[in-house]
């Protein structure tokens, strides 16, 4: 599936919920299901700056596609990270560079991607794109 298709799928899933509590519960669930960063990659250099809870991001390329793994001490941060990686992991660098994150607004979690929020997710998103850019240059 393309990034856009996955994003649409996520928006559809979230559209079933009636209130923020159901949305949060689902997001937290998603956080529990993602493939976690391997402990050996939980290094200081993979730490994202500017968050109250530790948040790690690792990236590698396999057959032209970028695979990201993550983990966070905070379960909400992890949930949103999961929703980001579901769309961006396992995609080509170019597709990642050209994508947007409007779907986060649409599923009612916009506040977590505010540039001034101390959860590091904006930095993580930037980092996701930097990795894609770096890998795209290598090819």
């Amino acid at each position: 599936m393309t990034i856009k298709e996955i994003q649409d799928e996520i928006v559809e899933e979230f559209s079933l919920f009636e209130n923020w509590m159901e949305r949060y519960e689902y997001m937290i669930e998603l956080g529990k299901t993602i493939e976690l960063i391997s402990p050996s990659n939980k290094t200081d250099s993979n730490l994202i700056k500017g968050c109250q809870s530790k948040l790690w991001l690792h990236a590698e390329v396999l057959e032209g596609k970028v695979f990201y793994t993550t983990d966070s001490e905070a379960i909400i941060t992890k949930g949103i990270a999961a929703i980001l990686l579901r769309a961006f992991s396992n995609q080509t660098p170019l597709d990642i560079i050209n994508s947007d994150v409007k779907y986060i607004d649409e599923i009612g979690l916009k506040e977590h991607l505010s540039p001034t929020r101390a959860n590091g997710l904006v930095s993580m998103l930037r980092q996701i794109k930097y990795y894609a850019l770096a890998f795209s240059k290598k090819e």
Partner: protein
Amino acid sequence: MEFDINKIREDFPILNRKVNGYPFVYLDNAATSQKPKTVIDSLVDYYSNYNSNIHRGVHTVSQEATDAYESARQSIQTHFNAKYSHEIIFTSGTTHSINLVANGFQSLLNSGDEIIISGLEHHSNIVPWQMMCEKNGALIKVIPMQESGELNFSVFEKLLSNKTKLVFVNHISNALGIINPIKKIIDKAHEFGAVVLVDGAQASSHLKTNLQELNVDFYTTSAHKLCGPTGVGMLYGKEKWLKKMPPYQGGGEMISSVTFEKTTYAELPHKFEAGTPNIAGVIGFGEAINYLNKIGFDHIKNHETSLLKYATKKLKTIPNLKIYGDSLNKTSVISFNVGEIHAYDIGSILDKFGIAVRTGQHCAQPIMDYYNISGTVRVSFSFYNTTKEIDHLYKSLLQAITMLS
């Protein structure tokens, strides 16, 4: 005046707002206080009716502004019972006040001199001394904290010696709310001839401090913590020390005469108030002090103590909830964690219920290191909070725990 909580809440416009569909419950008072209408009005009045630069102005409006500014200084002097009004220096906040003193003592201390800092300090109270010590070679000793959140006084006594030149301790710890035994600390330090600076940023909204009785050498606070505006604070210093310290910043106001060869500094307090001060801020600061005195610090204390007891009792019924600094000797702050749940998660969910709390390290990483935690959820009450708000906190917290477990 009687203490009528409903009437008092009407003084604070912000308490009418909603957050995420719920009435706003503000429990982040240790970060900054909300502002009563009278303080806001004092700013509007200043800017709408007599805004002008102060001192040296011969025109009426400048006189009015100067008089209001200086009368705020007097209100604050009276409130804190300082000996002279020129011992009250206006700064941009506690951080500025402490840096001013650290800069002042840089040239008064020598390599090998020692300064003692409490282990409960806010960053503002650590970093300036580290910066100072890098320059003059003085050494920092730390009074360790104990599991209860209180300082270990007997270690403090052992740290003291003739090498001790300065002791720095906050009146009340912002991360835990612990009230430090500053009178004992001051007296003990004075036996060794050490100068004592007390950081009152967390104290001055909760209790009335009598500076002469305390016999403290320096005392600091920020207006924004006590119902006043942002960008203004106070440094109290005994005249003797203020005279000894070199000025911190150069500029207008603090000068008596300037040539390119030589500059003579003005008298206190102007020597330390370089440049155009936060005139509106100072006026609002004075108004805030007057407002709090009108409410009455006895009333404030009573109400806050009962809120703290009520909330502590309720929160303690929650399984796995651990309160840090669970001492009786504290102001209305509860710093806690629940099991393995991250503070950030709890704070985020509480926000969804309209409740503002602070999460994280509270600018006090050494305390977090002591407990070996990455942060806490901190709820901090003010005299305008209610037991009903605590009930909402309790219920919301239970929901959050369910969602996050």
